[in-house]
């Protein structure tokens, strides 16, 4: 049951991410990213981290993606033009973009090879390690990570002010 859920969520995640990167219409990209975030949230639940899963949905899907959606709607840009040339030229022609594509491919292969070397198994929940609860998260968050917590709140305040100032129309 776990395995089927994992492969289902992983498949949705990868397909949605590839489509996000590949879609021409930014509105569709945002919508597909929301789908991929939901699948990722499901993976977090499978990994025994319901708190992270819910925070992912609340903050990422519920707030950040709404922000993206509003910006896409308000800017109302037309869909991106397709690059010129036939399919072969588009895929294998020279240019910095295609070099970037090759680099990404090399990076992916490198990562896969590096990870293949370490082969470990995840402990199941019935191995004696108790699944951490939200209480444990809270205790650690406010003891060891207390400074980071407060600093993050200042960061958000700074980001809010910065975003408002940057997007403001110039006073004529």
């Amino acid at each position, binding site marked *: 049951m776990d395995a089927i859920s994992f492969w289902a969520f992983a498949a949705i995640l990868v397909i949605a991410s590839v489509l996000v990167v590949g879609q021409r219409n930014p*509105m569709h990209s945002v919508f597909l990213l929301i789908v991929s975030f939901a699948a990722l949230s499901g993976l977090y639940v499978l990994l025994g981290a319901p708190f992270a899963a*819910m925070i992912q949905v*609340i903050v990422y*899907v519920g707030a950040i993606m709404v922000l993206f959606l509003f910006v896409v709607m308000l800017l109302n840009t037309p869909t991106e033009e397709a690059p010129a040339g036939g399919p072969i030229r588009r895929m294998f022609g020279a240019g910095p973009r295609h070099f970037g594509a090759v680099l990404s491919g090399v990076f992916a292969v490198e990562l896969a090879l590096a990870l293949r070397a370490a082969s470990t198994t995840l402990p199941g929940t019935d191995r004696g390690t108790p699944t951490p*609860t939200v209480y444990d998260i809270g205790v650690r968050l406010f003891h060891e990570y207390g400074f980071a917590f407060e600093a993050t709140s200042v960061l958000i305040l700074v980001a809010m002010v910065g975003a408002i100032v940057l997007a403001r129309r110039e006073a004529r």
Partner: protein
Amino acid sequence: MLFGISRELIVHLVIIGVVFLALQITAAILVYMERKVAAVIQERYGPYLVGPKGLMQPLADILKLIMKEELRPKGADVVLFYAAPILSATAAFAAFAVIPFGADTTLFGFLDHPIHLAAADVNVGLLVIFAISSMGVYGVVLAGWASNSKYSLLGGLRSSAQMISYELAYGLSFAAVILLAGSLSLRGIVEQQDGYWFGFIPHWYLFLQPLGFLIYLTAGVAETNRAPFDFPEAEQELVAGYHTEYSSMSFALFFLAEYVNMATVAAVATDLFLGGWHGPFPLPPGFEWIWFLVKVFAILFFYIWMRWTLPRYRYDQLMEFGWKWLLPAAVLNLLVTAGAVIYMGW
């Protein structure tokens, strides 16, 4: 064991089916209730032709909606246009999955040990409800965008801005209750509300958090885009806001989503503030969900009453109220609750 499937699994599946059906029936009852209550408030008859006392009116409404023509404006984004009502309805139903509606029961001895009466029982239940109601914003904003019409776009933007603004006060009123209960699970919060003070005042959080309850209901009404916060759907100003261009089943899905959202807000208010399924006199075991239903319908009646009594807020008044009054009130409520928990050990 029945056909190799355990009894627990069968019961769980049945409970999921029952919850789903109950939500749909609630939506149908709400359609009727809304029109009858509106009629009583406005001193006229409501529907009375279809069936005895008009009780078959929801059925007639649903049949009418199903048989209408499905229209789509030219230039509308097909995928998003049809995905939006599906998303709205799905989010509305999904939020009810984690709401417990009855005490632990063995279903009159059918099962060996008692099970929780809820479609799913997670220990971060309150966060799940908050998360899914933030997903409900997407149905609205995508509907507004995909309709390729200015009324829809304006209505969608306004409606979603309103929903995300009131989510803050909504979440903060949750936070105060979580502080008092010490648990994120809805079942845990309801179980804390058992018992009485001085023998007759029930241990509900309503009495410990009166401001919190008011904030929660106000934010809930704004979240579901109901009067007096329904400017984005106002017939006089924006035709019908984000669902202007929808007809037939797509419109029915939005309609359904709105009523099920109302039911979710009422159910969560019942669980958090009104003691869930604990009632003044104990019912026979296995029937506590009757109290739950009574309380939910009381809050729904209050919802409908508010719609037909109060005038509508203008959009800027609505946003000002949400940010400048409700949010500070919710923060104040949280601070006072936190102080009380620390210093008085509640």
